[in-house]
């Protein structure tokens, strides 16, 4: 398809409109030097489309253009587009020529007329300013003055001939309603142009939704289908999904959420430039969390934008003060800007436009939208979804760290999927819920997802007090999570148990010390006993030795005293025994030696 598109692009020169999204849908813009028909009901954005294209051409490419305004007064056009910062009055002096072509009601019509004179005037003007663009805004108003279908046909042909013979890119806008669609000139208008863009505005559950569709593009491919469009800070934008590339810088810088507890659960805080979604039932402290984030951002000296819906900034600040979050000073210093939008019967697109304007004006680094789900309140869910997601993308494009809250009825986090469906777009998703047990409602916080970061899977309890909100670890006992009074009871119980344990332990310690002292005392006693025993033994041994010595001495003494030759007598008896053995067995040397040793 791309090769084919390139070939077409070469053969068919196009001029970019500069309208975000449209040039992608039309693969380059409008056909150069040809005519484009823009049709749609009243208030669909036809004129804005034509003017924005012309304005882009005039200011960016310095191409002059002519606007023939049949329907709307030039001063009204200038006023309508002033908010977009287009500087049409300045351009009107140099590059753009506005021709007021409303026929005043005082005009009397008498008979047939034609466009010959007007085209002659345009010729002169084109030559004068070298116009490359011409817009016939609201050609249906002029054609309706022509009384007969034949006359309308004739003038349409005249216009076509005029355009065909000039090197000029034209945009013709026309209203469509039941009357015009049945006219032959309407069909011919569509036939004579090379490109047709149809605008549509319908009410979806009471809220206007604008769409655009390219229905014809001679000699070129284009993205088929309807695409939503909205008016942003600088004009019309077409949501061309999947064509606009998502390119955002990724950073590892962490930004505090305002809660040290939450930061640690998120592995150090929110990523700079990421968007966090907080969902929860009414009263689960979504605003408190968002407020704390805003306060901590202001304390860091970062410009912050707090967008709230259906609740004024002052009320929010008062309510946050009661939980210890003080934003007044930051509002005074200009660091914090608070914007409160009403959602009743206001188009979500207008909110997007307003918020975008605020972002451009205040240039915040951190941002809160509370609650984003409010934009879906007016009913048009599909457009609110688109707007919500575009808003998040817009915030991310500006590298703003954002917390966005969404109201979800009930505790089922998956309920969000049926609502705005922003959970897929958001980087981090925090779910706040109630845990009702033992007649109490307690706030629980869980992190459902967090891209690119480890995050705790634990449930924390959010406790609000005058000192500010805090995250408390919950008790999980027997498969149940304990909060509020139960947690408090559990904590008290735990405390008592700890005290008891401490007392028990010191008691045991003392007991052991006592036992140790007892044992060592006993050891000392035994030691003494042992020594005594040893001493006794030593004494006994000494006596024994002494006794043995004395007895030995006595024997000797006795021996000495009994006979003078005690030695000789013994030798005689020995000789006698030897002689007796020799007579029994002779030649036995061994026996002889033995006898001798024994004698010694």
């Amino acid at each position: 398809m791309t090769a084919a598109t390139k070939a077409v692009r070469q053969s068919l020169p196009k001029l970019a409109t500069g309208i975000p999204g449209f040039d992608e849908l039309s693969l380059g813009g409008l056909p150069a030097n040809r005519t484009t028909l823009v049709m749609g009901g009243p208030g669909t954005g036809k004129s804005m489309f034509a003017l924005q294209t012309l304005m882009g051409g005039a200011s960016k490419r310095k191409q002059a253009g002519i606007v023939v305004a049949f329907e709307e007064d030039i001063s009204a056009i200038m006023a309508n587009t002033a908010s977009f910062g287009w500087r049409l009055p300045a351009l009107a002096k140099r590059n753009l020529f506005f021709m007021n072509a409303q026929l005043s009601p005082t005009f009397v019509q008498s008979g047939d007329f034609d466009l010959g004179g007007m085209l002659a005037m345009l010729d002169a003007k084109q030559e004068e300013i070298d116009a490359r663009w011409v817009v016939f805004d609201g050609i249906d108003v002029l054609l309706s003055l022509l009384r007969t279908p034949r006359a309308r046909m004739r003038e349409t042909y005249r216009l076509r001939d005029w355009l065909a013979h000039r090197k000029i890119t034209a945009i013709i806008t026309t209203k469509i309603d039941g009357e015009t669609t049945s006219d032959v000139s309407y069909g011919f208008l569509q036939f004579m142009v090379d490109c047709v863009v149809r605008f549509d505005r319908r009410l979806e559950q009471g809220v206007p939704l604008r769409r655009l569709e390219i229905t014809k593009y001679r000699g070129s491919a284009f993205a088929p289908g309807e695409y939503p469009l909205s008016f942003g800070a600088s004009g019309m934008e077409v949501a061309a999904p999947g064509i606009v590339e998502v390119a955002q810088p990724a950073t590892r810088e962490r930004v505090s959420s305002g809660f040290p507890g939450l930061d640690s659960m998120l592995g150090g805080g929110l990523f700079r430039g990421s968007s966090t979604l907080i969902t929860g039932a009414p009263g689960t402290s979504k605003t408190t969390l968002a407020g704390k984030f805003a306060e901590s951002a202001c304390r860091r000296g970062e410009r912050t934008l707090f967008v709230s819906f259906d609740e004024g900034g002052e009320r929010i600040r008062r309510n946050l003060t009661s939980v210890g979050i003080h934003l007044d000073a930051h509002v005074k210093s200009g660091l914090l800007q608070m914007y409160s939008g009403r959602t009743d019967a206001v188009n979500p697109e207008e909110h997007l436009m307003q918020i975008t304007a605020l972002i451009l004006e205040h240039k915040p680094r951190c941002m809160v939208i509370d609650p984003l789900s409010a934009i879906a309140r007016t009913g048009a869910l599909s457009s609110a979804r688109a707007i919500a997601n575009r808003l998040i993308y817009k915030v991310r494009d500006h590298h703003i760290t954002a917390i966005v809250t969404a109201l979800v009825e009930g505790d089922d986090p998956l309920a969000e999927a049926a609502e705005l469906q922003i959970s897929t777009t958001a980087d981090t998703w925090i779910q706040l819920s109630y845990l009702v047990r033992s007649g109490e409602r307690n706030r629980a916080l869980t992190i459902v997802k967090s891209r690119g970061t480890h995050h705790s899977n634990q449930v924390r309890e959010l406790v609000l007090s005058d000192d500010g909100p805090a995250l408390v670890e919950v008790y999980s006992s027997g498969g149940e999570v304990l909060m509020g009074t139960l947690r408090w009871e559990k904590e008290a119980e735990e405390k008592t148990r700890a005290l008891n344990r401490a007392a028990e332990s010191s008691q045991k310690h003392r007991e052991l010390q006592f036992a140790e002292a007892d044992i060592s005392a006993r050891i000392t006693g035994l030691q003494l006993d042992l020594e005594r025993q040893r001493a006794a033994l030593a004494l006994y041994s000494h006596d024994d030795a002494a006794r043995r010595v004395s007895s030995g001495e006595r024997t000797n003494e006795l021996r000495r005293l009994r006979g003078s030759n005690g030695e000789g007598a013994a030798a005689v008896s020995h000789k006698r025994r030897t002689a007796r053995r020799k007579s029994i067995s002779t030649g036995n040397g061994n026996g002889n030696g033995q006898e001798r040793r024994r004698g010694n």
Partner: protein
Amino acid sequence: MATKRKPKSRARVGTTTVVTMRLYVAGRAPNSVKAIANLEAICSQYLQDGYKLEIVDVCEHPRRALDDGVLVTPSLTKLSPTPGANVIGNLSDTSSVLAALGLSPALSA
């Protein structure tokens, strides 16, 4: 080309003032040619007292037509006396032209 036509005579003195008009046409386009013819017929029938008519060809004087705020052709502007009036078309509907110029068919003799 701008053409000025002056009345040939004043039939009744002091009763009416001179009507000043300007007709914008586009060359020899059928509607423009018709308009000139229709207006001349009306003038000769109902403005015998005198009138001033200037015919401006837009094809020749587009800048002037632009400045005068002309949109379509043919287009007739009554400049004086007040109130002024604008009539577009080939002026084939005589009664509406007369009404716009502040003339009534009864006034004619």
